[in-house]
């Protein structure tokens, strides 16, 4: 079987603007992942092709890219999930500065992640054993804790495209994960951080983040829980 990949290429040392290059790849199967095709192109057709990959099993979140116009993980999408008889287009995650080909600079993404204090804050002395949490309370965090920080959600968000200071869905999801953790002792501190001009109120419930999330986390629902917590503390 044959498949045609149209890949956005950009080398800052030689190119002034990004351009597209087509690769016709033979000997593939519809059960191949997009990443497998990329490996074949890099291995036998164009050694300069640059992309991130690490675990290749949808856990590390390195190979987030725009596949046929939407953000997905190249290792989690099979050719048969795509309209592969037509040309498959690969582009870097939108709205982030491109370093080379499909690799983008995620410094801004991680900076916002750190802004929401993504760790448990405790003020009391630890008990002799561990800080206990009931199964029911832990279950409230399971969905949000599945996030692998691949940046597919934040870079798919139109609010973030138009406002570079917006925290973005990934950071807000982390804010939920720790604010609603019963062991955390500074939920108010975190709520103050998201209750800002470029914080949670920039979420206009467009749901692009949910469509992009490879872990199928309903990010907008978690953001709405934070919104409700903020409204409740005002009334």
């Amino acid at each position, binding site marked *: 079987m044959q498949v045609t990949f149209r890949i956005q290429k950009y080398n800052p040392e030689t190119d002034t603007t990004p351009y597209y290059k087509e690769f016709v790849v033979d000997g593939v199967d519809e059960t191949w992942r997009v990443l497998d095709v990329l490996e074949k192109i890099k291995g036998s057709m164009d050694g300069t092709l640059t992309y991130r990959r690490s675990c290749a099993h949808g856990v590390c979140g390195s190979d987030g890219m*725009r596949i*046929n*116009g*939407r953000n997905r993980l190249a290792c989690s999408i099979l050719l048969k999930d795509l309209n592969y008889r037509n040309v498959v287009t690969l582009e870097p995650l*939108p*709205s*982030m*500065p*491109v370093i080379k080909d499909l690799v983008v600079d995620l410094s*801004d993404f991680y900076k916002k992640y750190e802004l929401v204090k993504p760790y448990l804050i405790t003020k009391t002395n630890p008990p002799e054993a561990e800080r206990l949490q009931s199964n029911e309370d832990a279950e409230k965090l399971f969905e949000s804790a599945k996030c692998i920080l691949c940046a597919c959600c934040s870079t*798919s968000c*139109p609010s973030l*495209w*138009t406002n*570079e200071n917006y925290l973005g869905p990934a950071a807000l999801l982390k804010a939920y994960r720790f604010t609603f953790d019963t062991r955390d002792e500074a939920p108010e501190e975190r709520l103050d951080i998201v209750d800002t001009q470029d914080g949670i109120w920039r979420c*206009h*419930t*467009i*749901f*692009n983040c*949910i*469509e992009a999330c490879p872990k199928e986390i*309903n990010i*907008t*629902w978690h*953001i*709405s829980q934070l*919104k*409700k917590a903020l*409204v409740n503390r005002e009334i």
Partner: protein
Amino acid sequence: MSSNYPPTGWVKVLLAYHKFSGSWAWVLHRITGLALTGYIMLHIIALMSLQKGKEAFDSEMLLFRTPLFLFLEWFLFAFLLFHALNGIRIALVDLAEGARYHKKLYYAVVIIGLLLFFGMGYIMFTQDTLHSVASVK
């Protein structure tokens, strides 16, 4: 980051990115919102004929009862319907558990909207609105 954020321009990114039901609802909500704001201004300007007396106002109202304006009014109703119904959808998403069934809510907005749109069309174009225009003339 610098002033050239995002690197490719957000309009270009928005046009190129795949649209899902949520993106369409968001885009349509903004278009209908701007259109309704524009309509309110037109509405106030049109009412200015009231200052010129009864006859000026009546002749203007006759114009608004012509088939073309009736048709435009029908679409004004469509814009209003979408904006109002989607407003309820957004409130359910933000204040209730709507994010868990946002696609169903979107389809409900579209289906209820279309039913009311055609229902209004039936009322507007089959009742004797057009005949009453003729009788006034």
